[in-house]
C-alpha cells in the first residue's frame, strides 16, 4: 500500500524577529507569543527560489533515508510562488536533482490546503499509473509577495520547504480525505502585486467552516475524539489554531502548535509537524487539516501502519 515513508524539511537560517517590530506595529509580547504564535519568521536567501528550497529539503531527506534517485518515478511540487510562470517548478526540481527521464512531474497550485490535496493526488496518481517511489514537495516562499508595511501579513509568514517520500513500505497511511472550496470569497486572500488578507473574513471562515468540516469527516469515518491522538491543523496563527481547538472541544495536548520560531510556512506547516509525529509511536491515528487561500480546505485521517 502506498503510504508516507519519510518526511524532511528545510528552514532558512535567517530569521526576522517580531519583537523588533513591536514599536512599528504597536505590539506587545502577549500578542506576539499567545495570539500570533510567531516570535521569529524565517527568511530565505534572496536568490533562492521555490525549487532551491525543495532541493535543500531533499538534501535533508537524504540524511534520514537512503534513496536511489533513479527509482523516483513521480515528483510533485505544491506552490503558488513558483520559480517562473513557465515552466512548472517540479521540472526544475527534477533537473536540479538529476532525476530519471521516466519520472512524472507536475505542480499543484494551492496554498495552505495544498499538502492534504498533494497527498491525495500523489497517492492516487501513483496507484493509477503503477508508480513506486514518489516525492511530494511543498515550498511557498511568501517573503517574495509580502508587503513589509502590512501588519496583517508582515508578522506571520516564514519561508521553508518539505519533502514527503511515498512508497509501498511506508509508516503513515492516509485513510480518508475530504475537500471543500468557497470560490465566492477568493478575494479575501489574494495576491495581485503583494499579498492581501482580509483578516476578519479569513478568521470567520476558519472558525466556522473548519471545525464543522472536521466533525463531518469524523462522522463519515464513524470516529470520535477518543479515536484521534492528534489534530494536526494548518498553523495559520496561534489564535486560529486555538479557536478551532476550542470549537472542537479538544484538549490542548492533542493539537500541536509549533511555529513560534519559523512562522506560517503555508503548505509546509502540516508536513513539518508530521515530520516529528512520524517517529512518535504513541500517535496512531491523526487528522490533518489544511485551509486558506481559495478559499480552500482539505482534511484527512492518517493512520500508523508500521512502528
Amino acid at each position: 500500500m502506498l503510504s508516507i515513508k519519510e518526511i524532511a524539511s528545510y528552514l532558512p537560517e535567517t530569521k526576522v524577529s517580531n519583537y523588533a517590530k513591536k514599536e512599528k506595529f504597536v505590539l506587545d509580547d502577549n500578542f506576539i507569543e499567545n495570539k500570533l504564535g510567531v516570535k521569529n519568521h524565517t527568511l530565505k536567501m534572496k536568490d533562492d527560489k521555490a525549487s532551491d528550497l525543495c532541493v535543500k529539503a531533499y538534501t535533508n531527506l537524504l540524511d534520514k533515508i537512503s534513496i536511489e534517485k533513479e527509482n523516483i518515478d513521480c515528483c510533485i511540487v505544491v506552490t503558488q510562488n513558483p520559480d517562473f510562470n513557465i515552466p512548472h517548478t517540479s521540472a526544475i526540481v527534477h533537473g536540479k536533482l538529476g532525476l530519471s527521464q521516466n519520472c512524472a512531474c507536475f505542480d499543484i497550485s494551492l496554498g495552505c490546503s495544498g499538502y492534504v490535496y498533494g497527498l491525495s493526488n500523489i497517492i492516487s496518481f501513483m496507484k493509477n499509473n503503477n508508480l513506486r517511489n514518489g516525492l511530494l514537495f511543498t515550498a511557498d516562499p511568501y517573503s517574495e509577495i509580502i508587503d513589509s508595511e502590512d501588519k496583517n501579513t508582515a508578522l506571520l509568514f516564514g519561508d521553508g520547504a518539505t519533502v514527503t517520500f511515498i512508497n509501498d513500505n511506508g509508516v503513515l497511511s492516509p485513510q480518508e480525505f475530504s475537500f471543500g472550496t468557497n470560490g465566492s470569497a477568493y478575494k479575501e486572500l489574494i495576491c495581485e502585486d503583494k499579498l492581501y488578507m482580509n483578516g476578519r473574513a479569513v478568521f470567520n471562515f476558519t472558525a466556522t467552516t473548519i471545525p464543522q468540516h472536521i466533525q463531518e469527516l469524523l462522522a463519515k469515518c464513524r470516529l470520535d475524539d477518543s479515536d484521534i491522538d492528534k489534530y494536526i491543523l494548518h498553523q495559520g496563527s496561534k489564535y486560529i489554531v486555538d479557536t478551532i481547538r476550542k470549537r472542537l472541544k479538544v484538549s490542548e495536548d492533542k493539537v500541536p502548535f509549533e511555529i513560534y520560531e519559523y512562522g506560517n510556512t503555508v503548505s509546509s506547516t502540516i508536513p513539518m509537524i508530521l515530520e516529528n509525529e512520524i517517529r512518535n509511536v504513541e500517535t496512531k491515528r491523526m487528522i490533518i487539516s489544511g485551509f486558506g487561500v481559495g478559499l480552500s480546505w482539505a482534511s484527512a485521517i492518517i493512520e500508523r501502519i508500521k512502528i
Partner: protein
Amino acid sequence: MNITVENIKEVIMEADVLGDTDEMKNDIPLTDQGVDSLDIVNVYLLLEEKFDIKIPDEDLNLVQTIDSIVEYINKKLG
C-alpha cells in the same frame, strides 16, 4: 427580544478576552480596554452567531462600545 449590556458582556467573556468584563466601561471602545484586533473579530463572530445577525465590515464603526453594540443589535432585531 431586548438585548442588554449583560448579554453583550457574556459574549465578550465567551471570546476569552483578557481582563474582567465587569470592569469594562460601556461607553469606551472595546479596543481601548484591552480587546485586541484578533479578539474583536472573535467577539463580532460570536455576536453574529448568538443573535443570528450579520455585521458587515461597513458597520464596524457602529459597534465599537458595549453601549453601541446593544443599540446596533436591538435595531437589527427590530
